[in-house]
């Protein structure tokens, strides 16, 4: 399966990236090569082999006890914010329904 310019535009939209026309062209070619490379894996016979969900199958998800610990105070938390207003992070205007 090949990657088309439409795929690139779609993924760019999902990632909120604005691409120039020549970037779209070159990303289409690059992504297409990557996908084709990965597609090679499909040539392997995986019949009867369980899917790998993690590369460390011998390990289990560690659980922690439900105990409250120390966090950041507000000033520390907001220190890395590009923009703040009062006690909050400030972000560009968004419409509620972007989230879906």
């Amino acid at each position, binding site marked *: 399966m090949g990657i088309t310019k439409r795929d690139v535009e779609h993924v760019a939209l999902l990632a909120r990236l604005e691409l120039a026309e020549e970037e779209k062209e070159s990303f289409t070619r690059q992504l297409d090569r990557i996908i084709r490379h990965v597609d090679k894996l499909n040539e392997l016979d995986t019949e009867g082999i369980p899917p790998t969900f993690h590369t460390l199958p011998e390990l289990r998800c560690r659980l922690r*006890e439900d105990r409250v610990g120390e966090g*950041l105070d507000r000033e520390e938390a907001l220190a890395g914010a590009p923009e703040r207003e009062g*006690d909050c992070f400030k972000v560009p205007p968004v419409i509620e329904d972007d989230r879906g």
Partner: protein
Amino acid sequence: MDYETIIGLEVHVELATASKVFCSCPVEFGAEPNTRVCPVCLGLPGTLPVLNKRAVEFAVRAALALNCEVHPTSQFARKNYFYPDMPKNYQISQYDRPLATGGYVEFEVDGRTVRVGIRRVHMEEDTGKLLHEGVEGGSLVDFNRAGVPLLEIVSEPDIRSPEEARLYLQELRAILLYTGVSDVRMEEGSLRCDANVSIRPRGSREWGTLTEVKNMNSFRSVERALAYEVQRQREVLESGGRVVRETRHWDEGRGVTFSSRSKEEAHDYRYFPEPDLLPLVLDPAWVREIGEKMPELPAQRRRRLVEEYGLPAYDAGVLTASKSLGDLFDRTVKLYDDAKAVSNWLMGEVSRVLRERDLDIERSPLTPENLAAMLRLIDDGTISGKIAKSVLEEMVDTGKEPRAIVEEKGLVQISDEGQLLPLVRRIIEENPGPVADYRGGKKKALGFLVGQVMKETKGKANPQLVNELFRRELG
């Protein structure tokens, strides 16, 4: 044309853990913005999530209570989206390998049992909160809720009316409360509900186009919003149009759903297995233990109240719907034998008094001991049922013992014939009309005369005795 309504509900409920699901920040409602955060829930580089054991335990308990199959291995997944309520630009959720699947909830509708399938139950983290109002040129974000543990419970499209949707939610809420996995306070956002709604001509095998209804904030608004949406779809179809697949928001104030015109593209979440968390492998012994320690569930309590105390199904339903009311019943009948009398008082006066004061049972000073003592005071004739109502109010307001209240306020019932007889004779003298009516065969007139004595004694006269005295005097 006769249409069939098809509804599926997606419920998010907050798990009642002390700390967040992947970090140790406290979970609290109403904290100052951005004061319950840490590098993990702020998505700072280099941090890793560590799963909260209690959140898993609660999720498993809820899944078992919903009759689901809990899977020995499940997997967390990243749900990718660009919206600033999550600093990581993804939400950790579960996708193709959820914690549990294939359960059901049963409840009664007009005396018949309805079973609604549970498609899946999975864990995820809540997002931060965006504040739009009064902000110039942007939105403000509070990340206190980012990382709060949630359980998503997805029903099969088995619900056939807006009323059934409400009853399903009420039963679900009761189950979550009884299992203690959530406080389920809808007004604090700890239970949220979205609905998929479609209609089709009755008898048709094909599905209609569905719409997703969001923003319903109470059980009542769920029922209203769905009733509106069903009617709207019907009108669209009947005027020859077609229903558009879309997300619609419920506007509580205007009582309508409106299209939010979201682009379908925004729904491409590109899920993939969460690389920062290993698959969740549950120890079967632990799952068994959680099942064995399952508290009594609402359906079991309803059955027990009928079988053990001989209560009518209606009473059992009312007493079970509120866990605290049911708990008060259970504790009171241990102290006082007449279960039906306890039930009547709890469903009637106790509920009324608490409602008038906007009080929860847990937060009121009403105790089973005092309630039982009050019922005994009625039985031994110390107070009338009418006086008991004001004694109850005082008990709820002050937490005092009923006997102390009765003595303090001089509420002891007058059962002394010598004290009541002169009053009865005076009332007969003063009311020749009703007296003549009674003698003329209108037995109802007696009620009026008794009422006069009760009024004169401020409700303290023993009503049986007053009745008897009138009959004797007028007989």
